[in-house]
């Protein structure tokens, strides 16, 4: 199955262009065609407006709080308490309660400040893995108004995203990493040829903390806490540059 070409149905390629699905040669061809074809340009405008209104205005569906516990209860190893077809709802209710208790405990443990090297190890692993993958990011965009909404709907709280392009740290995109069993947002910034992974781990209840320097497997890692979020910044660039990045991120405004 081959993809349509520009000759078959140019409008499909306009959609693919807006979705970031085209290789550079086809993207260039679409751009040239858009410049001279008013019908295609109108389609481009409409689809872009639609995507934007979906992104910005459509309410995100957040799972109800009990769903995770319910799912974990359903797959938890259980004794064979059900000889005939009908289940004992008492046994089931009890197992859900126990599971909810256990699950809430494990959630707390995952979210509470862990030994820093343990979290740091997971985050550095995510950074290294991303450098080996074809794409270090799941969502590629230099526009923080695209990157931040991408996280909505995937995780309960989108991270703070700031624009540092004027300070020579342009945003490259974002991805999800998993620390413990919790998906956490990672922003990827670039400085010269170096990529910086900035992971935000919930740390509610923790007081703001200054920059702490770690060195993990040859990577410079900086950690700090702002507003109940522990930030982990890591890169192979110099410690001084990473420090400058962290200072800029902490002081930059996330509105406009």
């Amino acid at each position, binding site marked *: 199955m081959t993809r349509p070409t520009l000759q078959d149905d140019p409008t499909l390629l306009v959609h693919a262009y807006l979705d970031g699905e085209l290789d550079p040669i086809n993207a260039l061809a679409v751009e040239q065609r858009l410049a001279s074809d008013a019908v295609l340009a109108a389609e481009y405008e409409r689809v872009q407006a639609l995507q934007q209104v979906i992104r910005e205005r459509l309410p995100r569906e957040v*799972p109800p709080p009990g769903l995770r516990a319910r799912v974990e*209860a*359903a797959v938890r190893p259980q004794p064979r308490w*059900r000889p005939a077809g009908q289940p004992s709802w008492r046994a089931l209710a009890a197992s859900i309660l126990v599971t909810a208790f256990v699950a809430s405990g494990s959630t707390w443990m995952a979210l509470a400040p862990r030994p820093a090297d343990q979290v740091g190890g997971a985050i550095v692993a995510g950074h290294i893995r991303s450098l080996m993958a074809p794409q270090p990011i799941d969502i590629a965009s230099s526009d923080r108004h695209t990157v931040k909404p991408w996280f909505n709907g995937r995780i309960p709280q989108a991270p703070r995203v700031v624009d540092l392009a004027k300070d020579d740290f342009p945003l490259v995109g974002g991805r999800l990493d998993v620390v413990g069993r919790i998906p956490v947002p990672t922003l990827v910034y670039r400085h010269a040829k170096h990529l910086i992974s900035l992971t935000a781990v919930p740390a509610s209840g923790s007081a703001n903390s200054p920059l702490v320097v770690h060195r993990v497997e040859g990577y410079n890692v900086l950690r700090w806490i702002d507003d109940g979020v522990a930030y982990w910044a890591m890169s192979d660039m110099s410690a001084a540059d990473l420090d400058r990045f962290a200072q800029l991120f902490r002081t930059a405004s996330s509105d406009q």
Partner: protein
Amino acid sequence: MNVVTIHGDRQVSYDKPASGDRPRDASHSIPRTGKSGDAVRGDDENTRFASLVLPHLGEAYSLARWLTGNRTDAEDVVQDACLRAFRATGSFAGGSARAWVLTIVRHSSYAWLRKNRPTALVVVEDLEAVESAQANPGDPDAETPESELIAKTEAAHLEAAISALPAPFRETLVLRDVQGLDYREIAEVTGVPMGTVMSRLARARRRLIATLGRSQP
């Protein structure tokens, strides 16, 4: 039933004829899906399940909600899908865990709809008719509103317009524009070739745009 190899709408089978009552709570839906002994697994399966499936629970719920149109139903579907995923963790062959989970959620959603709301799926059965009726791109009689008008759409209106799309168009649009999957992942989840994903997506957007232009309050 091997959920991993399911592709396309037509191969989604269902277990029983439609029954009137909708199981709403866990005490009904667990035995419905969990065959005796299924849940008796070792720690390995649980660990694997926790790392493969649980990170995608939010997206699973979102897709189920858009496919069933109802939050309560979505919860049941997600639970059913998670049980299927749990039983199939051993057969996950790598690749995108997210696409794998959403494939199972999609399958569970349609199985659930067939069982509980067969009428909601008429459009899926008539998919070919829908596609051929739409053979001409761009709906000749559809209005084509300006992008400024689209940008003014209210959330409730937008949600209703997406919900009104026929299932094959709705799922493609939701997977792309709400959940952010790329074309390859959508092809994997919906079990159709990439070219079909592209044409469905374009048609879904054109229908949506026409609806938004026509009935803006």
